[in-house]
């Protein structure tokens, strides 16, 4: 049984149909990159997976539980799915370690000292142990994004969703964030990434999904997909980004 199973997923914003029937199965430990032009629905798909957007039709099954708005509470959902955003979205009034501790303490009711230990260990994993007491405003973009990854990991999710996590970074800071994701991938974390980093998608993913006009247009293992695209849309896309 797949960890994430999406069937016939539809989502519209008003008149505009953004997702026109998505079927996708993702196994535990798999790293899946979703690529495509802006407006192709990749971020919306990702946001449906943790219900930041409610889908209109279709089913999402996550770890044997259906996500249908009411079936899983936000608290439960957050134990299964973590999310990292393009714009980091750290809480500015909390220090690095407080950012990471917040959800375990408030949502999971983890005792503070235990939450602190968890926070320190995930911060060590992303290489941010030196900055536990800094405020987000005192960090570089790359550091903020690594803290955001640690914050998501502190809930011990089964899947980590990454929505263009390097797009807001200065080019020289992209590497440090991708390295953290690579480490997570090699540890067996299930990652679903919407990304414009084609090299990363090719080198680290187990599978690449190309979205076009609200549908999965082509998908497969990265080597084949990038070297032998089957559809003209994908070849055009690859030509335009490489």
């Amino acid at each position, binding site marked *: 049984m797949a960890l994430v199973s999406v069937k016939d997923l539809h989502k519209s914003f008003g008149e505009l149909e953004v997702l026109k029937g998505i079927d996708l199965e993702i196994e535990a430990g798999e790293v899946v990159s979703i690529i495509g032009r802006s407006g192709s629905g990749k971020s919306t798909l990702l946001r449906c997976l943790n219900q930041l957007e409610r889908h209109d039709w279709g089913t999402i099954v996550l770890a044997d539980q259906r996500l249908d708005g009411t079936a899983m509470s936000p608290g439960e959902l957050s*134990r299964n799915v973590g999310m990292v955003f393009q714009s980091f979205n750290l*809480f500015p009034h909390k220090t690095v370690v407080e950012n990471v501790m*917040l959800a375990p303490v408030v949502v999971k009711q983890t005792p503070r000292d235990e939450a602190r230990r968890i926070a320190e260990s995930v911060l060590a994993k992303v290489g941010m142990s030196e900055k536990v007491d*800094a*405020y987000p*405003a*005192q960090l570089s973009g790359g550091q903020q994004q690594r803290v955001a990854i640690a914050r998501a990991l502190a809930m011990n999710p089964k899947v980590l969703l990454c929505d263009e996590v390097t797009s807001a970074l200065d080019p020289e800071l992209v590497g440090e964030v991708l390295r953290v994701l690579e480490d997570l991938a090699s540890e067996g974390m299930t990652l679903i990434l919407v990304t414009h980093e084609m090299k990363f998608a090719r080198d680290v993913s187990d599978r690449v999904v190309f979205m076009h006009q609200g549908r999965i247009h082509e998908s497969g293992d990265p080597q084949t997909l990038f070297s032998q695209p089957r559809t003209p849309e994908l070849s055009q896309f690859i030509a335009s980004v490489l």
Partner: protein
Amino acid sequence: MTLDFSTLLPYTDQILHGLMTTLWLTAVTTMAGIALAIVVAYLRDGASKGRPTLVSRLLGGYVEVIRNTPFIVQLFFLFFGLPALGIPISATVAALLAMILNLGAYTAEILRAGIDSTQRGQHEAARALGLSRLQSFRHVVLVPAFSRVYPSLISQCIIVMLGSAVVSQISVFDLTYAANFIQSRNFRGFEVYLVVTLIYLLLAVGLRLAFEFVGRRLFAFRQGGSA
């Protein structure tokens, strides 16, 4: 005319008494008014995302009534109106209640501006981490919202402190009441009001400095710099 401040000396106790009353009225009002404003802002904020509920309409009505009527009328309404409805109320309680309701309404509106300017990503990050709406409001939204509107909040609290002079009209023994009392005995209006004016000025400046001191600690995260 000659100024003779020694005529005030026999009334030092009254001035101190009035000053203490003004101080504690302001202190209690500031704390209770801000607490009230947080509750009102939260309940109204929830409604703004869906259709307005009865609670949010009532709170909206409360905020509008307070902001569009004179404070002295609000005070008289409580002090003379409630007993007429069979609810006995002392002058001090009426004064305190009027001040809290007044500050609560203005601050709720100030705070709402701060809450509305919260970036969408903050709400989304909180939701993705599994925080409920109340948890998100309390742990994520509230402090940055306060920090953005803090200067307006300081001014509003000072306005209420100065506005508390009005409670002398229902014979609450505040600083203004003390002044009226003294000048009706010694007929040295100029000296009395000069002194009382200076005291109010010092109170206002002191209150602002105290608020700024607290703000620097509370909102240290805004100062940035290296860790």
